[in-house]
């Protein structure tokens, strides 16, 4: 990874990178120097800098952070910053590393954001299952409080802010920002409706709240130290900087990589020596999920697309959380589809009818097909149930051989949040492309002898 710019991953291999001393003495920049610079600027100047750098959100939606901060209604106080460290999207593994290996980078990012937005409190919401990350952050926060980097009159200025470490208890949906807020209020993590509950206006305790992903905030120290120009010099114009991608599945070298945003293609990522070094030995790419389990699938035709938000959504999927799951020809499309649908069925919060009932119905039908009890009407039933969750044409990649055009992202929804519609992604993706696999299981009762599991 030598010639890749290291904005957020520069201390991952430093044994002391997670300590305050290590943060100050290792990595691609000096820890807490950015905070000092930030405090010398006005909050407005700082926000302008972040906005000017087009720091895109890394949690999934890819919304520019600086623009989001600007949505807080003027004159309404307090404002809260909530850090989304709930990382649970299948395929995604990046925020955990950031928290475990470089906690001070995240803390400094929080401080910079809090100063710019005007937050008196920051809640760092870490996924419940990540005990090690919680521990590392707790130690780092204790160090930072002791060093007057957090708390009252930080670095002797009039800037005071608390960062409270909080953790969840296991529920994927809590990654959705309004569910995260509900959870932080001590409730069941069920999403709120947007409108009217846009967090920037009515968030935590109904007060203006900015929810940002861990990686988004981790970019801030480097960005503030190096400035807009240095940041935008990396990546594409629409998507500057780098981003972390986690590539898993059937590649020779799965891993988390920091790549320039917007310019790197999937092919480079899969094949380049710096990255995954090819599809696993002797196998061919069958399909890949370009942005987490919620994303519609891509196929070999899409491999030359760059990891650029607009391009990917135009092609029928999304960059999402930067989670790329690669599947070779040994993969059973129905089985993979069932596994992802089962995930959404299990993780549906149950608040809205179509998702609560629809996802578990989808799972039951798919399970039945897998078990050899499929009925011919099941495929249409699946598609129609999907249509009742996400009405109208569902985003899907083009299939030139079959003369099918791409349907761009995002999908429509009868649900409250995108979780329900996400369950449709594997269904429409798999059925449109591999209908024959479903039919084979249904009509021939022929359990195609494909294991989605075997090591190569």
């Amino acid at each position: 990874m030598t010639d890749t710019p290291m904005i957020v991953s520069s201390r991952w291999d430093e044994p002391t990178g997670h300590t305050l001393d290590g943060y100050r003495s290792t990595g691609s920049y000096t820890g807490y120097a950015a905070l000092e610079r930030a405090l010398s600027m006005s909050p407005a100047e700082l926000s302008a800098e972040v906005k000017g750098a087009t720091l895109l959100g890394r949690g999934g939606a890819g919304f520019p952070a600086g623009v989001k901060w600007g949505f807080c209604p003027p004159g309404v106080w307090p404002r809260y910053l909530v850090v989304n460290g709930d990382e649970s999207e299948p395929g995604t593994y990046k925020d955990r590393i950031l928290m475990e290996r470089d906690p001070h980078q995240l803390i400094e990012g929080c401080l910079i954001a809090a100063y710019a937005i005007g937050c008196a409190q920051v809640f760092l919401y870490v996924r419940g299952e990540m005990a090690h990350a919680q521990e590392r952050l707790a130690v780092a926060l204790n160090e930072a409080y002791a060093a007057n980097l957090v708390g009252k009159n930080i670095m002797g200025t009039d800037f005071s802010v608390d960062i409270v470490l909080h953790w969840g208890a296991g529920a994927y949906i809590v990654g959705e920002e309004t569910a995260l807020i509900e959870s932080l209020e001590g409730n069941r993590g069920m999403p709120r409706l947007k409108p009217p509950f846009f967090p920037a206006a009515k968030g935590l305790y109904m007060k203006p709240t900015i929810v940002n992903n861990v990686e988004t905030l981790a970019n801030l120290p480097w960005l503030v130290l190096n400035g807009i120009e240095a940041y935008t010099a990396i990546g594409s114009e629409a998507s500057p900087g780098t981003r972390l991608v986690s590539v898993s599945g059937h590649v020779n070298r799965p891993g988390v990589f920091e790549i320039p945003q917007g310019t790197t293609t999937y092919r480079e990522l899969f094949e380049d020596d710096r990255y995954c070094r090819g599809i696993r030995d002797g196998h061919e790419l069958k399909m890949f999920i370009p942005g987490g389990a919620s994303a519609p699938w891509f196929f070999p035709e899409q491999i030359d697309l760059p990891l650029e938000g607009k391009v990917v959504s135009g092609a029928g999927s999304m960059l999402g959380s930067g989670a790329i799951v690669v599947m070779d020809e040994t993969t059973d499309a129905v089985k993979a589809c069932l596994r992802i649908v089962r995930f959404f069925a299990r993780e549906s919060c149950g608040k809205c009818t179509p998702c609560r009932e629809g996802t578990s119905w989808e799972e039951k039908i798919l399970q039945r097909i897998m078990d050899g009890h499929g009925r011919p009407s099941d495929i249409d039933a699946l598609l129609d149930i999907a249509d009742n969750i996400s009405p109208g044409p569902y985003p899907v990649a083009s299939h030139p051989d079959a003369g099918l055009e791409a349907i761009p992202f995002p999908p429509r929804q009868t649900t409250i949040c995108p979780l329900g519609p996400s369950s449709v992604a594997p269904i429409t993706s798999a059925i449109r492309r591999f209908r024959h696999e479903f039919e084979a299981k249904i009509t021939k009762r022929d359990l195609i002898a494909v294991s989605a599991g075997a090591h190569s």
Partner: protein
Amino acid sequence: MSEPPRKPVMTEAIAVTINGKEIEAQKGELLIDAAQRNGTYIPRFCYHPRMTPVGMCRMCLVEVDTGRGPALQPSCMIECAPNMVVDTESDNVRKAQDGVLEFLLINHPLDCPVCDKGGECPLQDQTMAYGPGESRWVEEKRHYTKPIAISETVYLDRERCILCDRCTRFADEVAGDPLIHFMDRGAATQVNTFPGEPFSSYFSGNVVQICPVGALTAKPYRFKARPWDLEQVESTCQGCSVGCRITVESSRDRLLRYNGVDSDPVNWGWLCDKGRFGFEAINSEDRLSGPLVRSGDALVPAHWNDALGAAAAAITSGLSTGGGAGAVAVLGGARLTNESAYAWAKLAKGVIGTDNVDAQLGDGLPADVVLGLPTATIDEVCTPGGVILYLGPDPKEELPVLFLRLKHAVERDGAKLVEVVPARTGLSRWATATVTYPPGEAASVVAALLDGSADLDQAAVAALAGATNVTVVLGRPSLAESAASIVDAAAAIVAARPEARFLSGLRRSNVMGALDAGLAPGMLPGRVRRADAHDHYTSAWGGGLPESDGLDAHGILTAAAEGRIDTLILVGADPISDFPDRALAERGIAGARTVIAIDTFLTESSRRADIVLAAAAFGEVSGTTTNIEGRVSRLAQKVTAPGTARADWAIVIDLAARLGRHLGVSNVEDIAAEMARLAPSWANVTAEFLAASGHEDGVVLPLPVSETVAHSEVPEAEATAEPEPDAAEPDADVVVVEAPRVLPPLVSFVAPTPTTIPSPDAYGFRLVVNRTMYDRGVLLSNSPSSSGLADAATARMNPVDLETLGLVTGAAVKLIAGDRSIVLPSRSDAGVPKGTVVVPHHRSESGPTTLISADHQVCDVRIEVAS
């Protein structure tokens, strides 16, 4: 789910297009409501106009175009905005609604034939109207063990539940008792209680009513009837004086169910459980079904003819004793309809000629105070941003739905509420401030508060300081504290805030109607003083009226105890259990030569009567009733009274005849017409007027008639027939008043000379006797579902006091007042101030009223450790 749409808040009228038709909506109004108000009903399950919308069920999805093309949006969450274009019937909408219904049905048991809700089930109805024909579901449905009792009265069948969040939202945001909750997640989500902690809310029955399927059922109604067998009429609950509107539903001449009606000024569709399940007492086997007369130690059934004859003879002989008309006294009347109350007033004051008449049993406030203070309606008290001074009993226990309204006003509408009470109440959690006072000192505490005293809770002082819109809820906080001390507090409020307006906090069902009808000493029908109206009624009724003000309940019972009352008539009154001084009530009843009781049950008092006349109860008589606001609404007859029990007014007419006088009326209509003609506060409130459209919620007395016109000369020619509440011209409210053309003036409050309260004895405690929703009173004891709900009596004391006595919660204590004492378990309660002890009324015969002397302003007790 026939809930009416939310009343729009008038902001700015805007045009919205629904299905091609332009309608007028208010900016910010929810689309689902605006559509319904304009004739387009959008199907829904989770939306309830009286609760926060949650947008969960997704049934109300419609296509909304705000300029960026049509998109499916939940109409229960979308606020109307200018130029919005809405389609509620497009193919996309149909498809989405079909989809939602199918999703709801896949796990629904479809056991409609055995479900209580079958026939009135929104899920069933909407499936017929909007649903897909056939089910594609071949998987196994969700299963739960059969119904679980989530409380004493409510069952939950989780299989039928569609997770609309109505019951759980109600429990949390309306009732304030979040004891049922969603549990688990996703498709496994269920509504449940915490183990061992049932949904014991005073308002639990409402969840049965608002459940859009048959998941929640009420024990008293389960499997009793099918909706299509039920007949219903609208009426007004008589469980307490709030006057919630209800439907009275029966089948085969038996009451089976009451449901709340959404009356905007009063109950918003809610009922308390005591009211909702009150029909059980009416159906009770123990109801009196015919007259009884004493034969030795026993009361034996008699013919009406004989019983009425005996009663008339007793009255006649009473009149012939040396005491004159005053030797006959009438206690009670709050159970009556307005018309029966008026008939009793006419009989007592016009025929018998006694003014020893009192509808209250020493547990209320003097009639001239209740009727004479400037009044406020519930809506006025609950005005958003208003300031409320609450001086009365625990509203959650005694005026439950008023409690809901007050809670809502404070919690959601920004009203400030300052409680001045002897101990914290069920409302204290929401109150801006709760100021506790030692019994007897309400007046001085209120005066100091309004004066901005630095010694008191500053939040309370700040809330009241400079508020120009103070409304006051005024009732009797404790039976052990005299009415006089509360009257003094009212006087202090009037002195400090002359503009303050009052809402009565008296609890007994139609006490307001009874007082209005003149069933109080010194009063005559129509909210007028006896002295002012003597001539008016003399000419209208033909003479014989009392010449001086009579005795109240305390005076009557004292006189009876001293042998000065010959004939004591108890009209639905049970002084032995209800009068604060039990010993005096017992002596009074023993001291009267003849006691005549007119009642629906044998009570502690009527058991000791000589003649018992069986009366028809609620649901068995029609007429009108008056709530705490002075709001008159209609009561409907739905079933026939048991046996030969008769309506009170009919008994009165008969008694009058036997006393040699024709009352001049022969049915409810006649009485109502006479009241509208003669009784000043009733001017123009005729049966037709009440039946007119727009008056479904009743009308508040007196009608807004300019006093000079209504209560002095009304030139007949200028009078118009029908007042128009909304008319711009105040003159439009002028009413027809037939002869006599000059009506006496309505009573107004005159502050009495303040009473002196003894200072507390340093070692003693001041007793507070409060009422609770569930007690061991006659009505509840006759309601199978509620009879077990009264908790055991305890003496609640401040933890510090308890500790000083060296006791822990549960230890038995002896409360001693003079030579009387009772023993109770103690209970530590930080909501009770030091030096005060709170004991609930109506648990057993040796209750706290055995300690109280009606001659004292307060009741001081010593507390000892009981051996």
